[in-house]
Every structure is written in structure tokens, then in C-alpha cells.
């Protein structure tokens, strides 16, 4: 990823790298915080600085990762005021967290550039995709705003921004569209150091430094001002803003002179005598330009005006750029401002044109505004053409939308899907693959080889679905002799490859195939056998579209050359050979030299095997003869239902369409108006990902239920039931007598959900029961799914109808006891073998029917709440966890709010019940209101069930009463009399870093909330950036040379309050301690913090070994197990033994540590020695703590306890 050290002007890179290459060379301080889709800019800057790459002045920029974007903005502000050149990269909520400092930085007229990969701000839902809602929220900060609409522009205008900010002293927000530009790989002409040096004026840098804080010329910045002067002072900066357009224009002109690439503040293209003009900003300009060119080619008088400088809005330049013939203008905004008379760009355009009309006395064009492309919704030339067409109507509609079907408020424009832009001849190819199979990286390589080495232009754009396990990827490649500005997905591919045969059943991979296109399948079946294995729809498309079909068994080739599952170097040369984009021999040679260059540092053997794969691939490629099939003709089979008919209505109408890849076709009316979705939907999404699934051998089973407790996907179920339940079971349904004195006469079944299993193998690893005659055989064994799917499906269907023993009869504090409870978190899209989800599943089993979850943004909010489905489920009574995600940074506070509201509703219900006691029965009311007996938590299974039963009687009694106000109100909230369990859940990024302040405050508040930290010791969701939970010696992004500082001991910090329950758990090491900790945390009537060791693919080991790694983490002292119970005489109890394994041995088994051993063995040894000492010291400290009696003096009861049956509430003061 590092740029070549010699200047090379034609390169292929994505928008983020294009920008980072400028920013890194022009900065001294770079403060960042990871956020999609901007993360890679900071990561690249960090990688380059870590490798010692200097900036333009020969100095290595300091790159620092902060605890949040607010922190990064603070560092930026400080660095700027001291006179450094400083920058940052962000998006979406991150930008919003920077706003306060942005006002300050602008108010102080400080040159700075912030590069933003513009992303949707979370509203009714989070979205990681691109639109302008974030940058539009920053438009009042006083920062100049410059918009780029392509990778080349992002590269060029990044430099313009750095140059213009120095010239104008006004800070610049440079933005480009998230994903569409930030992640598009394109051929660009790179700017050299000389180009940068020419545009950056060293005198201006000196002036900036001279203004910096220094005790030699002391000044005061950031005074407090009063009504007498603030206003005037605020107006004092006006001349600087007035000068911005000229500063930008000057930089653009200078750039144009050096490079030939000319930009204006706004740029017009189209008919000189245009009557209708489209105005856009950002990547939509690419699609719009193709539409306008096509229409003008047909003689239409239309044009396109692209806005680049958005703030200060260049009204004059805008008006001047419009041909005088223009009568109608449509302004497209990629954002929504509910309630406004129009979106921001529209209002600016109206104002600029009104101003011109007033001044010049000319007629003002009719201006309409509309929205497009929210959250990276496709914006195509057909949509741009539809806007221009609508603009020709006698009464053009304003406040319209384009790209969706609005059947509620009917604002959407009709789009003619047959519109095709006239573009030069080019090769268009689509590749289907899975997230980790190398398809995307292979295509990035192809773009580089074709775009850098052949004189042609190349473009790559990559689409992922929202799953972490089995994520489907689509790669869209365009290769052309002409520059490519098509900023939309390919519709009409000349080449389509499917790298995973299993996808053919699930996805219509040929939907975008052009007539006569070439199709390449990675097929386990030979050219002679494959036809009959293809879905009928696919056969039909191949015949009717006259497609040429080729196959290769890439997995066999990869296996034979020793590359395991990695098929990218097998599929790649096939694309080159079949598409004709390069002669096969040249392609293989080019790929070989790429392999040599890229993989050299990974060892000769890796290079040799990849070379062997390249050679073998072409030889194994076979054309499929479809003549016979064509003669016979094939009818397209009707598509089978995506979800079964018993699925709920919403799932049938909405979820199933999204699952089928038809979400774009859903109309507005299909959508919940407030972002509320039903839970228990993952069970309808049958993905059948696993090539092998666990099959139970009841004769070996010892009823331990370990398989079920470790399963990250709730795909292995354990049930104990009365033999009578077996009536109606499928033939041979396996069960066995249960070995339990407590539940005599019962039977046990262990059942896989075959279509939901990811095949991670954790259950088999965890199974302790071996066959006595053959040690490799266990009670669970992985077997090919093909042989078992149908039978296991039937068995699982039946298994779900079994009513297990009553949970009230079995204590939950054992592995079996916990696993008898139905998981209410099932079939998540988390990574196969995820270390976090077993905790969530367990929590849902223990407390699911009374659970309220506040979930911080991160992995758990993505696998927990990313459409189309959610794993949070309901029990037979329809109860289950209610789940909500607010933000990344505020989760603890959000959860506390939920707690306070639940307590208030409970108190109100108690108050009403007191009042209505005579009417409903004093005895019933007293029972309901009685405080829980000490030691029997109000949320324990029995207490909850009994209370629910009483509340049911109460409701019946209320229903019989005259429905006055109190009766109606109590009926509505009577269920709140059942204790709610509030859990605040998130990862270490939230708990240790961005949400640390809030979490600390919530834990200190004394309220009865439970916090579960899923500690993977790294930012997992955004891709492995270091957090304060990252251990010493681990390599992570922003800790490329190994994290030098130790992991924050969040448990110890929290214990210092004395009244917070704290537990440190690792389910793979001690399941019972995990269960105990969760139950104790729940029962403790104050705040609780449970920190759960969670293995993650970011640790770099085979995830089937997850549980073993957890055991080693504990054995090596890396993760001691303990519980701190404030109510106990000696609160701190160590639950693990003294370290018995060298920490270095544990570290050596995980790539996150082992990377450092390979890159810097001396530093590795040093950090490991220090870490070993950390562990030893911590252990001694904990041992000492385990003897400390902290029970006296008596702590005051936490406020959560102060609600009494009489409804009175003790006064508390939260003010400080």
C-alpha cells in the first residue's frame, strides 16, 4: 500500500489513498480516529510515518490516534495554534464530534485541512455509506468547503485545499463521496513533490508559524467576550472569507498550468445554449455528465453545472457560469433536511440566482430542488436524464426525489430504465466472491496491472453485503482507452465471474450480463458435468443471452499447489485470458512479477506457490459446450420463495425482498416510518454457508452442553425434555437418556441448525467426549453438509417444537442449566467463530425475556442490527430482548436513560397500584408491591415468572373495573411492575476510548445498570486499529511497531469506586464463572461491569481454536479471571490460578504479537519481558486485593434502590 519511492505519475489507487498521499506530504501533525469510510486515510498516513516516510520538508509527520474524533479535533486545534501544519480525516458522526473545535479553529482564522469521506449521519438508522448529510451539518462552522467528484479530483483538490487554506487563513473541509470516491480504485495522474512544492508557498507557512503560540511573543487566544464586542469581533474576519474564492481559483489555475487538469470554483459542461441545467456536487457529477453528454448528442439543450467550492458559496462564479439561455435549473442535493424549504445546495443556488436577477434586472430561471443518492443509493445517468426530462414539464416538480419509488408522498420522479449513456467502448466485468476469498484483492491487483502498465484507464468498485461471516462481494471493473467517469455500478457486463459455486443458488449472478458475454465459474464440476448442476434460471440466461461459459476448478488448483482455500491467483489469469484484455502469456508474466514484488516479504515459498497457481490456472480452463442444451431449450424456473410462507407478514413483504437483493425496488410505503423493526428475523434468513456441519453421535455424548454454550451462532442447541415430547419425531431422531438425578427420566438432544451453522467447528473443538475406540471421533463430528442437510433440516424443525423442561425447575448457574434456556440471540452474521457472540447468546438465555439492551456502535451493533435481519429473537411467549443502538460514544448514558425511564414507569405503576389496591384486591397489590426478598433477585427466573403471573391477574382485575384514567393508565404500564434488566453492551473501542467518560460517569452514578464489555482488545469493526485495550506488544493499526504501553485495567479502575460489581470473564476458560458473573451482575442492585475476553479474527489465529486461546490467555496471566462483589466482606475473588504459562508462549500463537517478532525481534523480546512483568505485578496486586476487607464503612445504598413500595423516592443529588 505504500506509494513507490520514485515519482510515478500514472497510478491506480482509491480515493482515500489519493487524498492521503497529499495530506501526509503536507502535514506535520496528523490526529485521527477511525471511522468508515475515512479510516484508511489515517491508516495509510500511520503506515507511512511508521515506515519513516517524510513529508515535503523531509520530516516524518507525527500521526496520533485519539480516543475519539472530538479528541482528534482537540489535538488538531492545539497543533494548529502552536503553528504546525496539521490535518485529520473523518466522516459522519466523527465530523459531528469535531464541530465544536471546528468553530474555534475557523474563528481563530487558522489554516487547516480536514479531509472528509462524506458519509450518512445516523438518523432512523446508522449507515456507513455515502451522502452529504455530515458535511452539510458542518456548513455553519466557518470552514471553507471544497467538493471533489472523482478520485483524480480528490487528489488534485486535496492539494488545492492545502494551498488555499494557507493563502486565505480560512480552514478547509475537503470532501468527496464515501465509498463511491473513497473506495473506488481508479487510474489517476499523481502529483509529484515538485507539484506540491510549487503550490505551497513557504512564506505562508512561515507566517502561520509566526502566528503560533510562543512565550517569546506571548498572546492570548480564546478569550471570553461580552455583548459589547463579540459581534464586532465576529465580523472582523469578513475580508478573509471574501478572499477565499480567489485563493482557491489561484491554486486551481496554478495546478492547471502544471498538470493540464483545469478546475473552476464551479464548472459548466453541456450545450452553450442550454435551457435546462442540472446542478450537482460530488461523485454524482460523473453519472450526470454522461447523461448530459448523451442528451446534447441528441440535440437537447441541456447542461451540467458542477459545484466544487461550496463554502464560501461562489454566487458570482455560479451565476456567471450558467449560460444566459438557461430557463430552468434542477439542483440535486445528496442530503435531506426535513422541514426546510429545500436542501442546502438548492437554497444556495436560489439565493445566488435571485441575487443576480435582482442586480441585473434579468429574469430568474425557474429553480427546483431534489434529493438523490442518500446512503450511496445508486445514481445513474438514467436518473440524471429523468431529472432533466422532468425539468421540461410545464410545471416542473420541486422537492422531488430520484432513484426510489415514493408511493406515500409521491415525490419521486419516474426513471426511464432503458436510457443508456453513450460511452466509449470499454470492457466491463463483474466478479462475485466471498469476503475472505481474495476476489476483491485480486481485482484491485487487476486494476493496478491494467491501469498502470498498459496505458489504459481502469476503475474498480467493490460492493459488500452486511454480513461478517460469508459476506458476498461484487467487484465491478471497467477498462477503457478513455478516462472513466462512470460513478455507478455496471449494468451490462462483458465478463462475469463467479468465484464461489455455492452463490449460484442464492444470487442471480448473470442479471447484469450483456448479450454474448463471457461467464467464468469456479466449479467443482467438470466442463462435461457442470451444466446439469446449474440452477434453471442460470441455464435460461446462458441460452437466451447467448453467453459463453467457461469453468475451472480453482479450489482444486489452489489445493494442488498448496494455497489452501485461496483461489485469487487461480481466477485472475483466467479473467485476463478470457476477457481478451491482455494476451494470456503477457497476463501471466505481469501477474507473476506482481506476485514476486508483493509477496516477496512473505517468503519464497509463497511466491513459488502463487506462481505455480498462475501457471496451472490457464491449463485447467475449460469451455462448456452448451450446444445440446441450447437445442433442447431451457425454461426459466420460477424463483422459489426466499422465506417460507409461515414467516410473519413484515418478513414476507419487506425482509424477503431485501434478502433477494431487491431492496432497491421497495417503495417508501414498505418502510417503517421511525426505524423500528421487528426482531426474531435472522431465523428466516437461511444462508447455508457451511461446507461441513457438526453431526451428533448420541452414543458418545456426556450431556455437558459445552457445544451449545460455545456456539457463536446458536446453531447447536441442547434440550432436556420429557420422553413424551418425542411423539411425532422424524424417524431416527436422535436422543438419549439424560444423566441427571435432578431430572430423572428425561432425555437429551443436541441438534444442529444446518442452514444457520457457519461451520466454524468450535463445538467440535469444545466437545470433550471421545469415542473410546477411536480418539479422533467425538460426540460431534464435522461432516459434509450435502450428506446431512435434508435430514438435519427436518430434525431441527422438529427439535424446535420440543418443549423442554421448565426453566424454573433448573437453576441457570451451570452450563447445562444455562443451555436449557432458549437462545434469544441466534444466527447472527458475525464472523465464523466470533468470540463475542457466545456471551450475547448466553445473556439472552439467562435474561432474554426481561432484557433491554443499549448497544454501542461496533461489531455487535452490525451483526446485531444490520438489515436485512436481526439475531435478537423472541421466546414462545413472544418476549425477548428489546434492542437499541444510539451512537458509538454515548452508549452508557443512553442505557442509563433507559434504566431511569424503566424505573420511573415502574414507580408510576406502583403508585397507581397503591391507589387502586382496594379495587384490585389488597392482597394481590401487596404481593406485587412487596420488595424482593434479599438474595432472591427481582429479575430471577422464578421471581419474574411469579410476578408476571400476578400482573396477569392484576390486568384481569383492572379489565373488570370501570375504565377511568388510573385504570387505563395502569393497564397500559402494568407490565413495568416486572423488573427490567438493562444491559449496556459494546466493545473496547467504546468502553475504553470513545465512551470512556460517559461509562465512568454511569458506573459512578450508582444506578442499577449492567455493562458488558466485549473486549477484543482492538477496534474490530473498523479493521484492527489499536484501542486502549490493546495489550503491550500487540501489533495493530496505529501500533505497527507493537503497542508500547500496557492495556488499561478498566476493571481495577472501576473497582476503586467500591460500589460497582466488576467481573473479568473468559467463556472459553471458565464457563461457569462466566454464567455466575452475569447472574451476579444482574442480581447486584447497583452498577455492574463485566469485561469479557473476546477472541477476534483481528488476533490472527485459526478461529476454530478460539476456546483454547481463551484458556491460554488465562493460563498465561494475560487475562486473569475475577469477580469483585461489593456486598461481600472480602469483595475481590480471584477465579483463575496463578500464571502457569509464559506470556511469550501465548503471544507466539497469535499473529497480532507474532507480527512484531518477525518485524522487530529485539523490540518484541523487550515488550514481552515488560508485559511479563506487568502480568506478574498485576497478579501479585490482585492476590493482595483478594485479602482486603472493604465491607466497612457501610456504603450508602445506590439510588436505584431508593424506590420503595409506597412510591416515595429518596432525594438524590447528581449535581457536583
Amino acid at each position: 500500500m505504500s506509494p513507490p519511492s520514485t515519482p510515478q505519475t500514472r497510478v491506480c489507487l482509491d480515493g482515500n489513498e489519493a487524498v492521503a498521499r497529499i495530506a501526509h506530504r503536507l502535514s506535520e501533525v496528523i490526529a485521527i480516529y477511525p471511522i468508515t469510510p475515512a479510516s484508511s486515510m489515517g491508516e495509510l498516513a500511520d503506515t507511512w510515518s511508521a515506515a519513516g516516510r517524510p513529508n515535503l520538508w523531509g520530516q516524518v509527520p507525527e500521526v496520533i490516534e485519539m480516543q475519539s474524533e472530538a479528541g482528534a479535533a482537540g489535538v488538531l486545534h492545539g497543533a494548529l495554534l502552536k503553528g504546525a501544519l496539521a490535518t485529520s480525516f473523518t466522516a459522519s458522526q466523527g465530523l459531528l464530534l469535531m464541530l465544536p473545535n471546528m468553530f474555534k479553529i475557523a474563528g481563530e482564522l487558522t489554516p487547516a485541512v480536514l479531509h472528509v469521506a462524506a458519509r450518512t449521519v445516523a438518523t432512523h438508522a446508522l449507515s456507513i455509506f455515502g451522502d452529504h448529510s455530515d458535511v452539510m451539518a458542518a456548513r455553519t462552522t466557518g470552514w471553507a468547503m471544497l467538493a471533489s467528484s472523482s478520485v483524480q479530483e480528490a487528489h488534485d483538490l486535496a492539494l488545492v485545499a492545502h494551498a488555499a487554506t494557507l493563502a486565505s487563513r480560512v480552514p478547509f473541509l475537503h470532501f468527496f463521496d464515501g465509498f463511491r470516491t473513497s473506495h473506488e480504485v481508479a487510474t489517476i495522474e499523481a502529483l509529484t513533490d515538485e507539484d506540491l512544492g510549487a503550490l505551497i508557498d513557504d512564506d505562508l507557512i512561515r507566517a502561520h508559524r509566526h502566528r503560533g503560540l510562543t512565550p517569546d511573543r506571548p498572546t492570548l487566544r480564546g478569550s471570553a467576550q461580552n455583548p459589547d464586542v463579540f459581534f464586532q469581533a465576529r465580523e472582523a474576519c469578513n475580508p478573509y472569507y471574501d478572499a477565499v474564492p480567489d485563493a482557491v481559483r489561484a491554486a486551481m489555475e496554478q495546478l492547471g498550468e502544471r498538470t493540464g487538469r483545469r478546475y473552476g470554483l464551479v464548472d459548466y459542461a453541456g450545450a452553450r445554449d442550454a435551457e435546462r441545467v442540472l446542478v450537482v456536487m460530488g461523485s454524482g457529477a460523473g453519472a450526470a455528465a454522461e447523461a448530459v453528454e448523451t442528451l446534447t448528442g441528441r440535440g437537447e439543450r441541456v447542461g451540467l453545472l458542477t459545484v466544487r467550492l461550496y463554502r464560501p458559496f461562489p454566487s458570482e462564479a455560479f451565476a456567471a457560469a450558467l449560460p444566459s439561455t438557461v430557463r430552468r435549473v434542477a439542483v440535486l442535493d445528496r442530503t435531506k433536511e426535513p422541514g426546510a424549504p429545500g436542501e442546502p445546495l438548492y437554497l444556495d443556488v436560489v439565493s445566488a440566482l435571485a441575487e443576480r436577477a435582482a442586480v441585473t434586472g434579468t429574469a430568474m430561471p425557474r429553480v427546483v430542488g431534489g434529493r438523490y443518492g442518500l446512503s450511496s443509493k445508486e445514481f445513474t445517468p438514467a436518473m440524471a436524464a429523468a431529472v432533466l426530462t422532468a425539468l421540461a414539464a410545464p410545471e416542473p416538480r420541486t422537492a422531488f426525489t430520484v432513484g426510489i419509488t415514493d408511493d406515500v408522498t409521491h415525490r419521486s420522479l419516474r426513471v426511464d430504465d432503458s436510457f443508456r449513456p453513450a460511452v466509449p467502448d470499454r470492457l466491463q466485468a463483474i466478479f462475485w466472491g466471498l469476503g475472505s476469498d481474495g476476489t476483491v484483492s485480486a481485482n484491485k491487483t487487476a486494476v493496478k496491472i491494467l491501469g498502470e502498465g498498459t496505458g489504459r484507464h481502469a476503475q474498480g468498485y467493490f460492493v459488500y453485503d452486511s454480513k461478517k461471516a460469508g459476506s458476498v462481494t461484487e467487484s465491478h471493473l471497467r477498462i477503457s482507452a478513455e478516462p472513466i467517469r462512470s460513478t455507478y455500478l455496471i449494468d451490462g457486463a462483458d465478463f462475469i465471474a463467479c468465484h464461489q459455486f455455492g452463490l449460484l443458488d442464492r444470487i442471480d449472478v448473470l442479471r447484469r450480463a450483456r448479450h454474448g458475454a463471457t461467464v467464468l465459474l469456479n466449479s467443482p464440476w467438470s466442463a462435461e458435468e457442470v451444466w446439469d448442476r446449474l440452477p434453471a434460471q442460470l441455464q435460461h440466461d446462458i441460452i437466451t443471452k447467448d453467453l459463453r461459459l467457461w469453468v475451472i476448478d480453482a479450489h482444486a488448483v489452489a489445493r494442488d499447489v498448496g494455497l489452501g482455500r485461496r483461489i485469487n491467483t487461480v481466477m485472475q489469469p483466467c479473467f485476463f485470458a478470457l476477457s481478451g484484455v491482455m494476451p494470456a502469456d503477457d497476463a501471466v508474466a505481469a501477474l507473476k512479477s506482481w506476485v514476486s514484488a508483493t509477496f516477496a516479504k512473505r517468503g519464497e515459498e509463497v511466491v513459488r506457490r502463487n506462481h505455480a497457481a498462475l501457471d496451472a490456472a490457464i491449463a485447467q480452463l475449460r469451455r462448456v459446450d452448451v450446444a445440446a442444451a441450447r437445442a433442447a431449450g431451457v425454461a426459466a424456473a420460477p424463483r422459489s420463495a426466499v422465506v417460507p410462507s409461515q414467516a410473519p407478514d413484515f418478513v414476507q413483504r419487506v425482509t424477503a425482498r431485501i434478502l433477494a437483493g431487491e431492496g432497491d425496488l421497495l417503495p417508501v410505503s414498505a418502510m417503517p416510518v421511525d426505524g423500528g423493526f421487528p426482531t426474531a428475523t435472522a431465523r428466516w434468513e437461511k444462508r447455508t454457508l457451511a461446507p461441513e456441519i457438526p453431526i451428533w453421535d448420541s452414543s458418545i455424548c456426556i450431556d455437558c452442553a459445552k457445544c451449545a454454550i460455545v456456539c457463536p451462532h446458536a446453531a447447536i442447541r441442547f434440550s432436556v425434555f420429557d420422553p413424551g415430547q418425542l411423539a411425532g419425531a422424524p424417524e431416527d431422531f436422535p436422543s438419549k437418556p439424560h444423566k441427571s438425578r435432578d431430572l430423572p427420566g428425561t432425555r437429551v438432544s443436541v441438534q444442529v441448525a444446518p442452514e444457520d451453522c457457519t461451520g466454524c467447528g468450535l463445538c467440535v473443538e469444545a466437545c470433550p467426549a471421545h469415542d473410546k475406540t477411536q480418539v479422533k471421533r467425538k460426540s460431534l463430528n464435522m461432516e459434509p453438509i450435502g450428506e446431512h442437510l435434508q435430514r438435519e433440516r427436518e430434525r431441527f424443525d422438529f427439535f424446535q417444537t420440543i418443549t423442554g423442561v421448565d426453566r424454573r425447575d433448573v437453576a441457570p448457574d451451570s452450563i447445562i442449566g444455562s443451555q436449557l434456556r432458549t437462545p434469544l440471540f441466534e444466527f447472527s452474521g458475525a464472523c465464523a467463530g466470533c468470540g463475542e457472540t457466545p456471551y450475547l447468546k448466553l445473556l439472552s438465555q439467562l435474561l432474554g425475556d426481561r432484557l433491554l439492551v443499549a448497544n454501542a456502535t461496533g461489531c455487535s451493533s452490525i451483526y446485531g442490527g444490520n438489515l436485512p435481519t436481526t439475531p435478537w429473537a423472541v421466546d414462545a411467549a413472544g418476549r425477548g430482548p428489546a434492542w437499541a443502538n444510539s451512537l458509538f460514544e454515548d452508549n452508557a448514558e443512553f442505557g442509563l436513560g433507559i434504566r431511569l425511564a424503566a424505573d420511573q414507569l415502574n414507580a408510576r405503576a406502583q403508585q397507581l397500584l397503591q391507589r387502586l389496591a382496594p379495587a384490585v384486591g389488597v392482597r394481590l397489590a401487596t404481593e406485587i408491591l412487596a420488595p424482593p426478598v434479599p438474595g432472591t433477585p427481582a429479575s430471577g427466573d422464578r421471581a419474574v415468572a411469579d410476578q408476571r403471573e400476578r400482573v396477569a391477574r392484576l390486568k384481569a382485575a383492572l379489565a373488570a373495573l370501570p375504565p377511568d384514567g388510573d385504570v387505563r393508565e395502569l393497564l397500559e404500564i402494568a407490565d413495568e411492575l416486572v423488573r427490567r434488566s438493562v444491559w449496556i453492551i459494546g466493545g473496547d473501542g467504546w468502553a475504553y476510548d470513545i465512551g470512556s467518560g460517559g461509562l465512568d460517569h454511569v458506573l459512578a452514578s450508582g444506578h442499577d445498570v449492567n455493562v458488558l464489555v466485549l473486549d477484543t482488545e482492538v477496534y474490530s469493526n473498523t479493521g484492527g486499529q489499536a484501542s486502549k485495550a490493546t495489550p503491550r506488544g500487540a501489533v495493530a493499526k496505529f501500533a505497527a511497531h507493537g503497542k508500547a504501553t500496557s492495556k488499561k485495567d478498566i476493571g481495577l479502575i472501576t473497582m476503586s469506586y467500591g460500589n460497582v460489581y466488576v467481573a473479568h470473564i473468559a467463556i472459553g476458560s471458565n464457563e461457569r464463572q462466566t454464567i455466575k458473573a452475569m447472574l451476579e451482575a444482574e442480581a447486584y442492585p447497583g452498577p455492574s461491569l463485566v469485561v469479557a475476553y473476546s477472541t477476534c479474527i483481528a488476533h490472527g489465529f485459526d478461529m476454530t481454536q478460539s476456546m483454547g486461546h481463551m484458556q491460554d490467555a488465562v493460563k498465561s496471566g494475560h487475562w486473569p479471571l475475577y469477580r469483585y462483589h461489593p456486598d461481600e466482606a472480602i469483595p475481590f475473588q480471584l477465579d483463575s490460578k496463578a500464571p502457569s504459562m509464559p506470556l511469550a508462549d501465548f503471544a507466539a500463537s497469535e499473529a497480532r504479537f507474532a507480527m512484531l517478532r518477525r518485524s522487530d525481534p529485539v523490540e518484541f523480546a523487550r515488550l514481552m519481558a515488560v508485559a511479563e512483568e506487568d502480568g506478574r505485578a498485576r497478579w501479585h496486586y490482585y492476590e493482595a486485593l483478594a485479602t482486603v476487607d472493604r465491607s466497612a464503612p457501610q456504603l450508602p445504598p445506590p439510588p436505584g434502590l431508593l424506590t420503595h413500595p409506597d412510591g416515595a423516592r429518596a432525594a438524590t443529588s447528581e449535581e457536583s
Partner: protein
Amino acid sequence: MDLTTRYLGLDLRTPLVASSCPLTGRLRHLQRLEDAGISAVVLPSLFEEQLVHDSLQVHGVWEETGGVGAEATSYFPDSQDVQIGARDHLALVSAAKDALSIPVIASLNGVTPGGWASHARALAAAGADAIELNMYAMASDPTVPGGDLETRQLDLIGEVRDAVAVPLAVKLGPFYSSLAHFAVQVVEAGADGLVLFNRFYQPDLDLDAKAVVPRLVLSTPEEMRLPLRWVGLLFSQIDANLALTTGVHSGMDAAKALLAGADVTMMASALLLNGPEHVRQVEQELVELLTQHGYDSVTQLRGSYSRVSMPDPVGWERANYLHVLASWAPFQAVGAAQAYRSVSDHAVQ
């Protein structure tokens, strides 16, 4: 007492050499060995298999965590510094060479034909005074004849011989159907010396882990008999140096090795057990023993008890066994009686 000897063309102060073991993998231990008087060191083996495994593992980590999803396109920093391969090992060779004044012999355990030669070149370039090839082939495939395995090994030795100019020793296991014949071929293929024998780690079973596990068991002096016999048999029959390793713990053991015909004796277990300074004691014992028996130099006694030097050469072969039985003093103790019965039962069979 003249203890000097010549091994692989290297002049050594004594015949006591440290064989490849964990001690020779650390610079500070190497220095202690030198201080204690060791005459040469064989560094731990460069295991090509390990390098390939590491290489594929690291490649796998990068490849399989890359492009996983829209948010996390990678999980590890693409560090330019990560080195896979023999860098650390070669650094040890160079460092040992710099730090020590005694000869440093590198050891190589390869798997691929090309790998042997290229790694040998790298070891020589790093400064190794000689290279010891560690031959290892489990003859576990019932379809592969022994002759094929031997041919493959001889080819590899030839390749390495062509690749490097430094002296070459070949460390063999005892499991060849005609060891003497194979030894001659090994020398013809280019070996300057033979190291007898490679002491393979034998697997063990762990009932708790339900797994086959590796377990390091240190050698005992008793185990010296096997290499001793073969050194005695091969002495003067092949045109190469002989090194005896396995079971050398004392000056007496070293003397026996030399008497049988070894140019050097190699120690590992005794050093691991007693520390590097044990060398000093062994040398002292050797000197005392030789003095006691009236020897002036190692050259004098080397091979003096070998098969060719013995009045009854058959003593080195089958008859050896009969001698054992004949010399046994029966009924000395109950334990001995049982042992005798079991031995004689065995002999009858």
C-alpha cells in the same frame, strides 16, 4: 596433553564440540561455552519446514483477514518490516561468528530440493565455517522403497555440495538397511564428515489432551553405545571425518568415542543438564584419563579401538551380544535374577 584434532578441515583445540541444541541458539550461552573451552559449536538447525510453515501462516493471516467487509478491508498494518524467512537465523550465525573465535558450524534441515541449496548458500554467506546437513526422512509411506529415499537424500547432498564451498557434514539417523554402504555414498556425494547419529524426537501420548505430543528426553550415557558401535565400524572405511553424538556426558564417554574412531565428540544433553561450564569438567576428565593411560595426544588414541584396530573385529558386530551374556554374573540379587531370566528368555527366542 595434545588434545588438538581436525574436523571438516577445521583445526580444533580439543575434540569437544557442542552439538545443535537450544544452548547454541543464544549468544550468551555460546559465549559461556567458548569460555568453558568448547572447541566448536553447531548452531540449532534452520528448519526449512518451519520457515515454509511460517511463511504460509503469515500469508494466510494477511490474505484471509483482508477484504472481509465494507468497513474492515484489512485487520493488520501492512508493515514493510515483517520478515519471513531465515533472517533471524542468519543473524544468529553472523552474530556467533562475530562473537566467537572458535569455528561456528551451521545446521540445516531442509524439505525441498531447491530449499536445501539456497538456505545452505545463505548460511555460508552469513559466515558459517561449515554446514551440517540434518537428514530426516520418516520411511512411513509403504509405497516408497528404501532405495528411493536414499537416492533422494544423496541427490540433496550433491546439490548442497555444488552450491557451497564450505565443508559439509551430514548428520544421519541410524535407520538405513545398509548403513555402511550408504555412508560411503554420502561421502561420495560430497560429505566431508558424518555425524552419528541424529537423535530424533520420538512422539509421546498425552491421555489428558488426547493427543500425540512431542516430548524432549535428554540422552543418557547408555545411549552412546549405538553411535559408538558405528563409529568403530566405519572408522578408516570411509574417507571422511566422524563425529560421535548422543550420550556423551563425561570425559570417559569422550575418550571412548575417540578410541572408537571419532574425530570429535558432540554434546548437548550433558550441557543442557549441567550448564555450559560442564565442558571444562569433561575436558579435565579426558586429560586425566588419557594421562592415566599414558596417551600423549588425541591423534594417538583416535581409532585405536576401532574395528580395524582390534584383534577380534567381530567383537564390534554380532558376537558382542554373546559377550554380554557370558560376562553376566548370575544370581547376584533378586532384581538381577529377574533381569537375567528376561534376558535369557529373549535370547532363547
